[in-house]
C-alpha cells in the first residue's frame, strides 16, 4: 500500500499552485457576483480562462504531445482538477469537448479529424456540445431514434436531441444517430455536426435554477460530412460507451475538493451564528466531514488503482452515486444549519458572501440524473460488479 504522491507529483502540484496564484485573476465566486455580468459574458470569462490554461499546457494533459498534451499521468490530471476546484477557478466552457470528444478522437478518430478539431477545441475557438439524449431516449439511450441517411458526400440528420448542455453557446455538436433502424446497438453512428447551418436549430430550455445552460437541438435534414463520422458507420454505440468512461477517473479528487470548499462555508456560518457548540449542529457537521473524507478515500483508492494501470471499471459507479447523493445531503444540511440566509440568491441583501447555496441546492438535484442516474448506476453495480441475475 502506498497512498502518497511521488516527489514529481508533488512538484507538479507546487508548480501548478504557483501558476494559479499568478494567473487566476479572480475566483469564480467573484465573477458570478459581479452585477455587470450576464450569462453570455460569464461564458466569455470562461473562454478566456480556458485559453490561459491551454497556453500553459494544462488542457488535454494526458494526450500525446502532438495533440497539445504532455502524456501526463492520470494522477497529475487528477491533481490538476483538484487544484482547480481549490482555487475556485472558472470551469472551462469546452469541458464536454475536452473530456468526451477529445479522447474519442484520439482513440477512434482519423488523423484528419484530430488535426481539424483538436487545436480549436483546446483553444476554445470552437465550443462543443453532446447530442446523445432525446425526448424519448435517456437512460435507455440505445433506443434513440434520430436518424442519419446517406446523401452523396454527406449524411442528412433528422430528429431531436435534448438536455444539450452548452448547446446555446456551441459551434459543433457530436451526435449519436441511427444509420440502421433494425440493429439496436450496431445501427448507431457517431457524427460531428456543425450547428451553424439551416438544418439545425437550438432552443434554450430554462432549468430549475432559472438559468438556461442546456437546450434542445432540432435536426431537419442537417448535413454532416462523411469524413466527420468518428470510427466506422455502426460503431457509434461502442465509441460512446468508452467515451462515457472517460468522464470518470480524473475527476475523482475534484469532487471531494469541491465539497470540502463548500463545507468551510458551513463551518464559517455556524461559527458566526454561534451554534457550533450545539450537539445537533455538531453531529450534522461531523457527518458531512466524515462522508467527504470517505469520498476522498474512495478517490485516492481509484486513483491508486488507475495509476497501477487498472481501468476504472464499474466500481466507478460507486463514486458517481457517492458524490452526487452527497451533494444533495450536503446542501440540504447547509440549508438546515445556516437557516434562511442560505436560501438568499447572490443578488439579495445579506446573501452569504462566499457560497451560493440557493443555486447549489438546486443544482444538486441534477447530479443524480445526468451521466447515468443513481438508479442506472445501481443497476450497473448489481449486474456487473455483484453479478446478480436478470429475470
Amino acid at each position, binding site marked *: *500500500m502506498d497512498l502518497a504522491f511521488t516527489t514529481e507529483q508533488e512538484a507538479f502540484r507546487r508548480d501548478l499552485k504557483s501558476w494559479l496564484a499568478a494567473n487566476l485573476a479572480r475566483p469564480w465566486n467573484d465573477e458570478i457576483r459581479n452585477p455587470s455580468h450576464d450569462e453570455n459574458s460569464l461564458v466569455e470569462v470562461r473562454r478566456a480562462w480556458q485559453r490561459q490554461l491551454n497556453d500553459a499546457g494544462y488542457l488535454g494533459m494526458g494526450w500525446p504531445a502532438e495533440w497539445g498534451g504532455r502524456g501526463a499521468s492520470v494522477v497529475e490530471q487528477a491533481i490538476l482538477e483538484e487544484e482547480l476546484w481549490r482555487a475556485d477557478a472558472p470551469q472551462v466552457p469546452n469541458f464536454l469537448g475536452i473530456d468526451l470528444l477529445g479522447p474519442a478522437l484520439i482513440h477512434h478518430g482519423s488523423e484528419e479529424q484530430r488535426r481539424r478539431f483538436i487545436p480549436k477545441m483546446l483553444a476554445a475557438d470552437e465550443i462543443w456540445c453532446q447530442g446523445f439524449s432525446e425526448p424519448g431516449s435517456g437512460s435507455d439511450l440505445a433506443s434513440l431514434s434520430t436518424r442519419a441517411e446517406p446523401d452523396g458526400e454527406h449524411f442528412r440528420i433528422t430528429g431531436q436531441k435534448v438536455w444539450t448542455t452548452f448547446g446555446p453557446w456551441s459551434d459543433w455538436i457530436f451526435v449519436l444517430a441511427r444509420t440502421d433502424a433494425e440493429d439496436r446497438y450496431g445501427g448507431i453512428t457517431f457524427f460531428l455536426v456543425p450547428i451553424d447551418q439551416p438544418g439545425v436549430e437550438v432552443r434554450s430550455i430554462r432549468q430549475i435554477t432559472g438559468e438556461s445552460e442546456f437546450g434542445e437541438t432540432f435536426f431537419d435534414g442537417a448535413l454532416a460530412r462523411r469524413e466527420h463520422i468518428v470510427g466506422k458507420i455502426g460503431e457509434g454505440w461502442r465509441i460512446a460507451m468508452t467515451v462515457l468512461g472517460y468522464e470518470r477517473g480524473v475527476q475523482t479528487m475534484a469532487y471531494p475538493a469541491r465539497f470540502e470548499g463548500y463545507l468551510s462555508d458551513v463551518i464559517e456560518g455556524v461559527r458566526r451564528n454561534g451554534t457550533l457548540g450545539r450537539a445537533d449542529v455538531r453531529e450534522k457537521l461531523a457527518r458531512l466531514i466524515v462522508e467527504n473524507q470517505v469520498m476522498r478515500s474512495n478517490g485516492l483508492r481509484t486513483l*491508486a488503482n488507475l495509476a497501477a494501470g487498472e481501468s476504472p471499471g464499474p466500481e466507478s459507479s460507486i463514486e458517481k452515486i457517492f458524490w452526487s447523493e452527497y451533494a444533495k445531503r450536503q446542501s440540504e444540511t447547509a440549508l438546515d444549519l445556516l437557516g434562511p440566509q442560505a436560501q438568499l440568491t447572490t443578488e439579495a441583501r445579506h446573501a452569504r458572501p462566499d457560497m451560493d447555496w440557493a443555486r447549489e441546492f438546486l443544482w444538486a438535484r441534477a447530479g443524480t440524473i445526468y451521466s447515468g442516474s443513481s438508479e442506472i448506476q445501481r443497476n450497473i453495480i448489481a449486474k456487473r460488479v455483484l453479478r446478480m441475475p436478470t429475470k
Partner: protein
Amino acid sequence: MQFELDEDRSLLKQQTRDLLERESGSEAARAVMEQAPEGYDKALHATLAELGYLALALPEEAGGMGAVSLAAVMHEMGRTAFPGPYLDVLLASRALHDAGAEAHGLRDRVVAGEALCVLARRETLDDLSSTELTASCADGRLEATKQLVPFGAHADAVLVETREGLAICERPAAGWEANAQPTLDHAQRFAELRLSGPAQLVAGGDPARGILETVDRLAALSAAAQLLGLSERALELTLAYTAEREAFGVPIASFQALQHRCADMLLQTESARSAVYRAAWALDHEPAAADELVAVAKAWAGPAARSVCGEAIQLHGGVGFTWEYDPHLFFKRANTLEQFHGSTRQQLEAVLQARGL
C-alpha cells in the same frame, strides 16, 4: 501509488483467513458462543500466540507489524465474526508495553498467551454522561468498580484506568468480584468488576493519558476494520442466498428492488474499505492526519456495518430471523462494535476536535 496490500501483508491476510476458516468458521464460533463459558477457544488463542498474532499491536521494534497489518488481520476477524478477547488482549499488551519496564513482565506473558489481560476503563453505562473517574490506586491499593470489562470474569489480570493512572491488578484470591453482563451479542462476554486489593501503578497522569490515546486510536482502527469484515461477509452471504432462493418462479436476486439494496450495501462496504485502509496507512505514514482519519473510518464503518448486516437479515427473510442462519452473528457484532472502542457519537466529536472545531 498503490492501494493493494504489499506482498507480505497480503500473505499475512491470506494466512489469517485460512487459519480462521479452518479453526473458527461459523460452526466453531457457534460452539464457543453456546458452550464455552469463558467465551473463547483457548486452544485457538494459544495458536494465535504461537504464530505471533498477539504481538500485532506492539510497536514494530517490539514485534508488531504496523497499523496496515493490524487492519488486515482485524478485517479477517470481522469476516468470521470471530468470538473472543483477541482485540482486547492486543490493546492491553500495547498499553503494558508503553507503560514501561515494570509492565513488561506481564506484557510478555500476555503476548505468549500465558495470561489473559484486558483493560478495565469504563465506569458509566452510556457515552453521554461524563463523570470523573472514581477508581483509585493509592499506596498500592486499588479500589475500582468497572463496567463492561471485556472477558473480565475470565481475565488473569486487568490494567485499570484510575485517577492516579494505569494500575495492574492480577487476579487475587479475594477482592475480585465479577458479575457477568451479557449483552445482545451472545458471542461476547462482559462483566462488571469490583476490585479491592493490591495493585501496581505502572503509569501515572500524563504518561497514562498518552498511552490511552495510542490505545484508543488502535482500538478504533481495529474495530473499524472488523466492521468492514462484518459488512463484507454479510453482503457475500446475502448475495449467495438471494441467488439461490426462488420466489415467484425466479431467484429473488433478480428483483431490482433487492439489487438496488445490494448495490447500496456494496457502496457502504467498499467505502468502509477505502476509509479503513487509508486510516491505517495514515497511522503508519502520515501521523498528522491519522487522528481525523481513524475517527472517520470508525464513524463510517460502524453505521455502515449496522445497516449492511441489518439488510442481510431482511434479505434472508424468515430464515434471517433464526438462530440457525448466520446473519444475526454479524448483525449483533456490528451493533456492539459500533458502540464500543469509541462509539459513532464519540468518533464524530473526535473528527471535529481533530479539526480544532
